[in-house]
């Protein structure tokens, strides 16, 4: 039997074939990490259209988490070191973490991670002057940071009423994220929910309900985003759930 040895011509013919059979290509794309996929958009216009196709884009296929960031436990007055540990979950090809210290992602010191959601981080850091706080959303992979504007005027013009800030982001449903803010009126148990949209880059007050009065203690500082809604646990063993209704784009 003859062993396989390619002449240049045969090889070119075959790889041409692979490159032209879209179902094979897209399946190969699904095995590639996002970083490579985004780079390979530049290979040709055909590849660009396959990779970015809004209906079949391999960028939008569900993926296993490659790892977890662990934030070391700190006592309240201990200085925050911004150091994070990375726990790879894909044992075989354990990747090096995308970053080790938050400071390599954003310049400011004393950054706090408030919430994380499908690869995005919601952080806060005190402003150098004025004793005010900046809130920002950060993508550690792209190192892109968006500082959240303040909610427009009215009673919500300051950050002081914030009782909890949460990211609502599901890349499988929409490339845009939302930030859900539980806002409490001073000295009162009246709450309101504000929503920031990355699409409009503005805050709006949730229309779904009027002010709500919440006497039974809900832990609005410890919530979780899951399945299209932010969930908070209440002392009465109930759950307070806010549906973020992300529209499919």
């Amino acid at each position, binding site marked *: *039997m003859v062993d396989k040895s390619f002449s240049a011509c045969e090889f*070119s013919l075959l*790889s041409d074939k692979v490159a032209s059979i879209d179902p*094979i290509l897209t399946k190969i794309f699904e095995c590639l990490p996002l970083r*490579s996929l985004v780079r390979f*958009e530049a*290979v040709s216009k*055909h590849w660009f259209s396959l990779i970015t196709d809004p209906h079949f884009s391999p960028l939008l296929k569900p993926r296993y988490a490659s790892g977890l960031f662990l934030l070391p436990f700190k006592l309240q007055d201990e200085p925050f070191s911004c150091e994070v540990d990375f726990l790879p979950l894909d044992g075989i090809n354990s990747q090096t973490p995308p970053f080790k210290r938050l400071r390599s992602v954003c310049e400011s010191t004393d950054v706090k991670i408030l919430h994380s959601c499908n690869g995005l981080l919601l952080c806060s850091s005190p402003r150098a002057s004025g004793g005010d706080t900046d809130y920002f959303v950060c993508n550690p992979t*792209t190192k892109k940071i968006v500082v959240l504007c303040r909610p427009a005027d009215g009673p919500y013009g300051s950050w002081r009423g914030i009782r909890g800030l949460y990211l609502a982001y599901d890349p499988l449903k929409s490339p845009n994220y939302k930030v859900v803010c539980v806002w409490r009126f001073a000295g009162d148990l009246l709450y309101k929910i504000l929503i920031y949209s990355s699409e409009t880059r503005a805050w709006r007050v949730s229309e779904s309900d009027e002010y709500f009065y919440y006497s039974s203690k809900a832990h609005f500082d410890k919530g979780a985003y899951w399945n299209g809604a932010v969930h908070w646990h209440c002392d009465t063993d109930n759950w307070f759930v806010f549906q973020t209704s992300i529209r499919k784009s």
Partner: protein
Amino acid sequence: MARKNRNPVGKNVDPEAQKKKTRTLTLKSSDGQEFSISESAAVLSIAIENMVEDDCAGGVIPLPLVDGGTLARVITYLNKHAEDGASDEEKRKFDEEFVSGMEMGVLFDVVLAANYLDIRGLLREVRRRIADRMKNKSVEWVRKTFHIESDFTPEEEEQMKKEFAWAWEGVDSDVDD
């Protein structure tokens, strides 16, 4: 779709399954080489199974899109996966070793053959291997390997590189490993 879930190594005493193990088929490659293979191994390819069921085989099954070298590789894979008593762990190890030494050209051959013959497991394995070889490579390496000519202008390419600078970091050298 029950057909693709059929387990050829099942411990049943189905006389039909027994017959398949002893019955051999002949596969003929594009360059005229003939290979004998047990029917139970051959029908792991959905395309071959359909040909056998439609009885259009008539002794020799011609595979005009697969050359002899590639067909020999595919048959090695099919035989292993039809082997009596091969554990899943053994098959997994075999799969890994089977694709690990293949050059890109060979991987392209095998992926096309697996696609044509509809052998899902092999297709999955080879696709994964191709992706693994590509993932840390430069755009230029991919163009050269897949024989693609860029239809972006240098300015457009520069723009993409600038916009997604993070995706262009940590790329291996173009020397093939």
